[in-house]
């Protein structure tokens, strides 16, 4: 399939958005859903065709003479010219990670489209209100995300960052009558917007020195793959300029990372993601688990050569990523809302990917000047891929459960294994995958991340292994709490059961992918410099990580498989810690304080007061001063003719007297 078909991959969702958005209201709800699914299926097929052609095709376009996978620019018209050199283009660029992301986005999106047919309907199969709108938004999101991954330049990524932000806003706030959804959507948008501001500043600084946005001039070499020399010259264009002691490029890259961190929910910009779970669950699966939240990782991966050269920025990413991974995993251990628990697990996993990128450059086996083997890079991208699949699976399972029991809280669930066997097995597969048990997908990718982390240093490896153990624990905690623990009490008028095929089929497909995805030869396909990477399983690391995962699972089994009072006692044993973790270490309260008390009460209100009373007051004062001055002198304009005559007469007499005096003298 020609690579230029990628245009269709982008264009179909855009068209569907416009079509469903404008004409959807006139159509029946079911029809819009089916149309949406069909369009997405077509898109997915084309995307697969393009991606497979890119990876396995033999054309000179894709793989150069030296066996390097090239970045292929399919289409790149100018969109907005700032100056002659700084031109924003809207184009399509295919390189390994873009092609991989095409697959990820389209697969998950298609699954979610299909799944939503069932999820967004009641138990009798009637589509709920706003169905058309929902599918329009999904199409918009898919378009934006695809536009983001195929971006040819930094600015295009920024543009689509904004677009996915808005789609995410619209979808979180889909149930717009609910105040919680409303609040969550606002929060998500504003937090990511704040991050985007930094992203923008980063682009400004970067583009000021390099005078370009194009990846082809920032990171890609002549052979069309990431090239250190090109990145070197881009960094050098700053001429060693510094700001507050750090090089401006480090600032720029850190700012860009902050932009990515906002989307990828890195600490402390993570607060929006748990709340974003107010949206429909398939949306959480698509946007807040699989695709949009990895945009930050994708962004850093895109500019990987630049980050490699600015180790300061890389260190920041490493620390932030590692801390976030731990922090989110800790919180996930105590959450009672399953979607929130999954959200924190997502944050933790994305932090894994970030850390993995950050550790990849400085590992001991440096074979090039700075690049290292790029093992972490590959692992990160691989994990991105596998995580998208199994996390989407987990979320869709959660959706099926929520749809069945009408609640997010795990104390309303318990013992569902009997009622929903397929869901239960799919969830188990997801959990095994995320816990890193071989041969499930997560094992392969996480293992490589840990290897890369141990390359950077023993501390980092240990830290990440610990987080991996926590991940296994909290995922299985959720699993056992939902499906076992005690007998299910039926709260609703009918017993929970496995959902219709539209919802079950995606679960099965994704579960299958989660099992086999680990065997994808990622080290051949998605490496930082386009060359195949020689790796072999490091059994010391792999074995220990499996062991840690098993310990985590065993612990979860012990605590949560059957109803017992051990968890309660543990909770009471460290009540303070438990409460803090349950309240996510009070980060939301802190933000609440800063936004409401400091910014709103401390800045906005005084400014508005100042405006009304000082500035406006000054002009009103001017007006009233003029008014009262006029009032004071209006006596002169008495309206009494006689007064006027008197004054007039005196004036005339005075004039006459003066004239006469002049004549006489």
């Amino acid at each position, binding site marked *: 399939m020609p690579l230029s078909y990628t245009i269709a991959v982008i264009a179909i969702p855009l068209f569907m958005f416009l079509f469903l958005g404008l004409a959807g209201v006139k159509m029946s709800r079911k029809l819009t859903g089916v149309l949406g699914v069909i369009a997405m299926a077509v898109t997915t097929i084309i995307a697969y065709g393009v991606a497979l052609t890119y990876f396995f095709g033999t054309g000179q376009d894709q793989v150069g003479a030296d066996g390097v996978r090239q970045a292929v620019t399919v289409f790149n018209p100018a969109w907005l010219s700032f*100056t002659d050199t700084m031109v924003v283009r809207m184009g399509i660029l295919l390189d390994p990670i873009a092609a991989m992301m095409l697959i990820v986005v389209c697969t998950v999106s298609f699954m979610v489209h299909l799944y939503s047919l069932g999820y967004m309907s009641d138990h009798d199969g009637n589509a709920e209100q706003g169905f058309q709108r929902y599918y329009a938004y999904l199409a918009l999101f898919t378009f934006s995300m695809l536009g983001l991954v195929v971006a040819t330049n930094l600015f295009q990524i920024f543009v689509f960052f904004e677009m996915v932000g808005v789609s995410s806003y619209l979808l979180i706030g889909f149930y*717009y009558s609910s105040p919680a959804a409303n609040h969550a959507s606002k929060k998500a948008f504003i937090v990511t917007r704040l991050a985007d501001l930094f992203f923008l500043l980063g682009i400004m600084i970067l583009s000021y020195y390099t005078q370009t946005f194009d990846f082809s001039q920032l990171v890609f070499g002549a052979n069309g793959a990431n090239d250190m020399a090109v990145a070197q010259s881009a960094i050098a264009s700053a001429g060693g300029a510094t700001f507050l002691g750090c090089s401006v490029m480090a600032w720029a890259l850190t700012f860009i990372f902050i932009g990515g961190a906002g989307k990828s929910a890195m600490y402390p910009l993570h607060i929006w993601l748990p709340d974003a779970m107010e949206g429909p669950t398939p949306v959480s699966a698509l946007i807040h688990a699989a695709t949009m939240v990895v945009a930050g990782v994708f962004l850093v991966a895109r500019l990987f050569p630049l980050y490699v050269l600015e180790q300061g920025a890389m260190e920041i990413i490493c620390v932030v990523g590692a801390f976030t991974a731990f922090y989110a995993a800790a919180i996930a251990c105590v959450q009672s809302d399953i979607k929130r628990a999954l959200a924190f697990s997502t944050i933790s996993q994305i932090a894994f990917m970030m850390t993995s990128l950050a550790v990849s450059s400085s590992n001991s086996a440096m074979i090039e000047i700075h690049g290292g083997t790029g093992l972490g890079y590959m692992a990160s991208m691989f994990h991105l891929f596998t995580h998208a699949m199994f996390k989407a699976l987990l979320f869709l399972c959660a959706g099926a459960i929520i749809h069945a029991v009408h609640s997010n809280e795990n104390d309303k669930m318990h013992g569902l294994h009997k009622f929903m066997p397929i869901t239960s097995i799919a969830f188990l597969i997801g959990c095994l995958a995320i816990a890193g048990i071989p041969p499930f997908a997560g094992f392969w990718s996480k293992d490589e991340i840990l290897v890369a982390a141990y390359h950077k240093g023993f501390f980092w490896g240990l830290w990440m292994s610990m987080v991996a153990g926590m991940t296994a624990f909290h995922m299985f905690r959720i699993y056992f709490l939902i499906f076992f623990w005690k007998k299910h009490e039926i709260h609703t008028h009918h017993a929970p059961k496995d959902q219709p095929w539209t919802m079950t089929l995606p679960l099965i497909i994704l579960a299958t992918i989660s099992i086999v995805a680990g065997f994808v030869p990622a080290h051949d396909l998605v490496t930082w410099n386009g060359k195949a990477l020689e790796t072999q399983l490091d059994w010391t690391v792999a074995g220990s990580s499996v062991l840690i995962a098993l310990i985590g699972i065993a612990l979860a089994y012990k605590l949560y498989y059957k109803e017992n009072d051990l968890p309660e006692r543990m909770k009471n044993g460290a009540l303070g810690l438990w409460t803090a973790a349950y309240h996510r270490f009070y980060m939301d309260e802190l933000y609440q304080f800063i936004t409401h008390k400091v910014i709103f009460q401390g800045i906005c209100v005084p400014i*508005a007061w100042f405006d009304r009373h000082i500035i406006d007051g000054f002009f009103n004062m001017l007006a009233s001063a003029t008014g009262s001055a006029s009032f004071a002198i209006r006596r002169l304009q008495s309206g009494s003719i006689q007064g006027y005559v008197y004054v007039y007469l005196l004036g005339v007499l005075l004039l006459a007297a003066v004239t006469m005096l002049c004549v006489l003298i």
Partner: protein
Amino acid sequence: MMEIFNNPLIYFVIIPLLTLLGLAFCNNRGMRAIRAVAVTGAVALVALAIYLVCLFLQARAAGDTSEMILQSKVMWYAPFNIELALGVDGVSVVMILLSAFIVFAGVFASWKMNPLPKQFFLWFFLLSTGVFGFFISIDLFTMFMFYEVALIPMYLLIGVWGSGNKNYSAMKLTLMLMGSSAFLMLGLIGIYFHSSADGNLTMNILEIAHNDAIPHQWQLYLFPLTFVGFGVLGAMFPFHTWSPDGHASAPTAVSMLHAGVLMKLGGYGCFRIAIYLMPFAASELAWIFLTLTGISIVYGAFSACVQTDLKYINAYSSVSHCGMVLFAILMFNTTAMTGAVLQMLSHGLMTALFFALIGMIYGRTHTRDIRDMGGMMHIMPYLGVGYVIAGLASLGLPGLSGFAAEMTIFFGSFENADVFRRVLTIMGASSIVITAVYILRVVAKLLFGEVQDEHHRTLTDASWDERLSTATLIVSVAIIGCFPNFFVNIISDSFLPVVNALKDYFPVAGM
């Protein structure tokens, strides 16, 4: 003398005047006839504006690189060399296009105007005459005259057809703008008397710029006069206070026209007269006005965060966005100035859209207080969606006009290497977050959530005229947002003369 009628530009003044004449013959009760005349006038203006864009593109494609195209002039009053001099460059072309579209949308937004529809449209078209006249003239006096023609009808339009505290607002608006035009007039007279070194005084902007004869000492006096004179209309801090009150009281179409076009007169004038004619003073005194406009941007955005009246929110948002226009103009490079014009276009359409929607919502609910409203999306989905789109345009969603404009401004501004301008740029850029805050706040409060007032449930969605009015604006916003380069190509060359003039005094200009 009669050759001037061969110039298509003059018809931008003649068409509104003919419409005025036509309206004068209408009966106040004959709504049908009034609408017919008004729509004919508006459509003719849109058609002419599009024709003008084509002419402009043709001229440029044919290699006509003159600064202004379609120039012609007629002596008006020889003792002071006052001419009716016409001419347009890319900036005026797009401003004329913007005005035509907003007049068109405004006519439909006031479709059910009551009372005195005939008089309303009379004043409305008089205002448009002034606006178009301002954009097509290149003679100081003629420009000033049209400027005043555009200002005065505002008083009656707000005072008679407004709502709320309309007398106060109309008076405040008119007095502040008149006060500013007093400054402006002084400035213009000053420019005139220094317009030429050899005594051949002229009012023609191009000739004045060509002569470049205004002594530097005088520029330092005249520049602030002119800039403040226009800046007040551009809602520059701290002279912006007429804007919230004026907008809040003005009827829908007037708010649209005012925020959409009239405020652009300010930015346009600042660029065309103040900076172009007095580059030395512009570069000397830029820091003062940069500070003020920089404050405007953030200040307006913060103020908008706490307002509860829909129109006040948008008025403060206008302060912020218009601040960005003046801010970008003072950055003295082609990119930022192009961004300023894009922002004018964008803000004009977007704010017009906002005010149209607010007017329609207000016409139904009879309240503009967001605390009394909620869940409007259930009740009036069309207006709700329109409002969300306007909001997204305002907070800079790619694909809608605000984004392209703001990005061009920020990147252009960042081109300046000095720390002062950079810090201000970063400050200005931070407004995108605050904008998101207040836009989302109002959207959440007004459109989403539960219906606050049960009486609102019976309200209807937009009627066809309202749909037409808003759809025109939404489509325009989307077109600018999706194809900004089309406009950038029209606009950016027009800044070369200014930037060249500035180059002598401001070394970074023209980068």
